[in-house]
């Protein structure tokens, strides 16, 4: 019986036609949401979809949505791996803040800027290792384990700023700014790098055994252990991946603002990232990683924010509209709510 459980816990790696159909249906809800949002935009704002070339770079609302969605999307990609392993990482916002503080600190110390990039990523790695050890080695529940770094991380960022007096955490770095706000040919660099990160993660998750191990460990850790997957190691690795992704978002966001602001940098990004995973159809109960749908989820969130700003609604409405859309997407995904809606609709006809 245990062997049966173990076998069924391993997701199929072969792509049968049926699986492709399921994938298409899964991505349909976030795609529908995005299409609706964009359709409303097109009606309200004339020329919403126009893309022009200004000063040698692409320019337009659609590019702007992708541009601003990129940090959330990268964090959400890391988050989708953690969630796939039945975890959650609340500390990503703090990791963004710490990475930013480290960048400002090392620039003030005069390090070469390429090295600073590795400093930032290294710190993200370290945060991931810390979270991973708490969850995988000490068996602490993920929400609690990552709550520790979430509450203390912004304090750590402020302390790093104090290392060099902390009076002026602003800086300029042509290299980092090229990675964040620069552009490669027509396309913003951060979009190119975002695509590279996505491709790298996709290869890791879908073309190596890692993704299968993560999904197996998230689906049923005991069954995965029995079939020879080192579930602890896999869970540990998922947090390291997430820490690295968050650190990259930290690099992009910090280079964008030219300063380290640990109190507000990346505030609530953990919530947006988790939301992106859920809108993309990922379940917090683990077992599945949907990279493409997660990116789509992040784009939906940003499209919503941008639409509210361009539509002329006061920015105060942002959160309420966001909440309404989140609830709508969640209700659409819920079988019970759909059933209730259908029976109500049928009842009205009678």
């Amino acid at each position, binding site marked *: 019986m245990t062997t049966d459980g173990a076998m069924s816990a391993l997701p199929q790696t072969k792509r049968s036609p049926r699986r492709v159909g399921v994938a298409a249906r899964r991505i349909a809800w976030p795609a529908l949401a995005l299409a609706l949002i964009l359709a409303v935009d097109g009606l309200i704002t004339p020329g919403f979809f126009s893309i022009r070339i200004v000063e040698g770079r692409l320019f337009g609302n659609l590019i702007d949505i992708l541009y601003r969605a990129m940090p959330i999307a990268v964090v959400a990609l890391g988050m989708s791996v953690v969630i796939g392993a039945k975890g959650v990482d609340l500390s990503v916002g703090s990791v963004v803040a710490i990475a930013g503080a480290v960048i400002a600190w090392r620039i003030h110390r005069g390090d070469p800027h390429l090295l600073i990039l590795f400093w930032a990523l290294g710190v993200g790695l370290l945060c991931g290792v810390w979270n991973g050890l708490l969850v995988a080695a000490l068996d602490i529940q993920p929400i609690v384990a990552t709550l520790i770094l979430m*509450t203390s991380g912004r304090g750590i960022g402020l302390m790093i700023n104090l290392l060099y007096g902390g009076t002026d955490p602003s800086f300029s770095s042509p290299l980092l700014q090229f990675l964040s706000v620069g552009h490669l040919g027509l396309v913003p660099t951060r979009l190119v790098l975002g695509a590279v990160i996505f491709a790298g993660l996709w290869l890791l998750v879908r073309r190596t055994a890692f993704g299968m191990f993560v999904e197996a460990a998230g689906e049923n850790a005991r069954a995965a252990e029995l079939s020879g997957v080192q579930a602890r190691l896999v869970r540990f690795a998922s947090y390291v991946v997430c820490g690295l992704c968050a650190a990259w978002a930290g690099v992009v966001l910090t280079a964008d603002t030219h300063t380290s602001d640990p109190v507000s940098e990346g505030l609530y990004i953990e919530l947006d990232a988790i939301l992106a995973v*859920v809108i993309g159809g990922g379940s917090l109960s683990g077992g599945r990683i949907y990279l493409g749908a997660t990116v789509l989820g992040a784009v939906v969130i940003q499209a919503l924010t941008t639409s509210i700003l361009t539509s002329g609604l006061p920015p105060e409405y942002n959160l309420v509209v966001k909440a309404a859309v989140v609830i709508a997407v*969640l209700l659409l995904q819920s079988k019970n709510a759909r059933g209730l809606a259908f029976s109500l609709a049928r009842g009205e006809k009678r």
Partner: protein
Amino acid sequence: MNERYRPLAATATVFVALFVAGGLLYDNFFSTLVLGDILADNAFVIVAAIGTTFVIISGGIDLSIGSMIGFVGVVIANLDAAGWHPLVSAGMTLAFGAAFGALQGLVVDFCEIQPFIVTLAGLFLLRGACFMINLDSTPIRHPFVEAFAAASVPLPGGGFLASSAIVMFVALAAAIVVAHFTAFGADIYAIGGDRTSAALMGVPMRRTVVGAYAVGGLYSALGGVIYAFYTSSGYPLAGTGAELSAIASVVLGGTMLTGGVGLVAGTLIGGMILGLIATLINFNGSLNGAWIMVSSGALLFVFIVLQRTLIAPSRLRIGG
């Protein structure tokens, strides 16, 4: 000693040790004045955390606490400007809090969506509602609120027990009765401990889950009322991040986030420990807010690891 009370004893020991350490380090620290201040300043978070304890024991989580605190304050301040008596508007917001919590519970249970996400939507919704009502801080000028903010009971040793702390103790007493001496409380523990067994034993699942979130909503609204009265204002950013402090208080109080294990009284001490740390760091003078965050996190870490290694969770389950 009953193993159930061991985490509570550990939390209380940490509190006493920190308090004594503060008394040794700083003059005038070891007094009822400091104790009274900690209670008064943190009453609103502790009240909200007490409500969250119910949700967490039932196996859920509530992230909408901080937004609820802000929303309630803004509503009371605006109704005050429109000439309402603060007690009437407070009663109305409490009813709203319970109803909003119940609705969240219903969505969690009926739609089978993770509580984390449902209450996250609640967080966005209520905070957004605050911003829609107004963007600035609104004063509450009613004489009743002034009297409430100033009212206190003198303690032996020169300290004061503020009115907000008294409300907190009353709310705590009510919560202890509901959690430990009613069938509803037992049902919450049962669901959090083992959902399937609870269902098989005939625990009314939906009613209990909805009830737990309603208690959570009611108590966070009460936290909002206390905060609005204590500060005599409604500020749309009030209570930002209070959900984190509340959850940390619950964890420090010995309640397991996996559900089914914990004591409501522990949350009081957990919240007071967080307040004590902030006070200790403020007393030092040369340290800043960053130290409060880092040391709260460090304490959370130490506490969780101790809980994990010293106490076997399975032996703490009530009736299990």
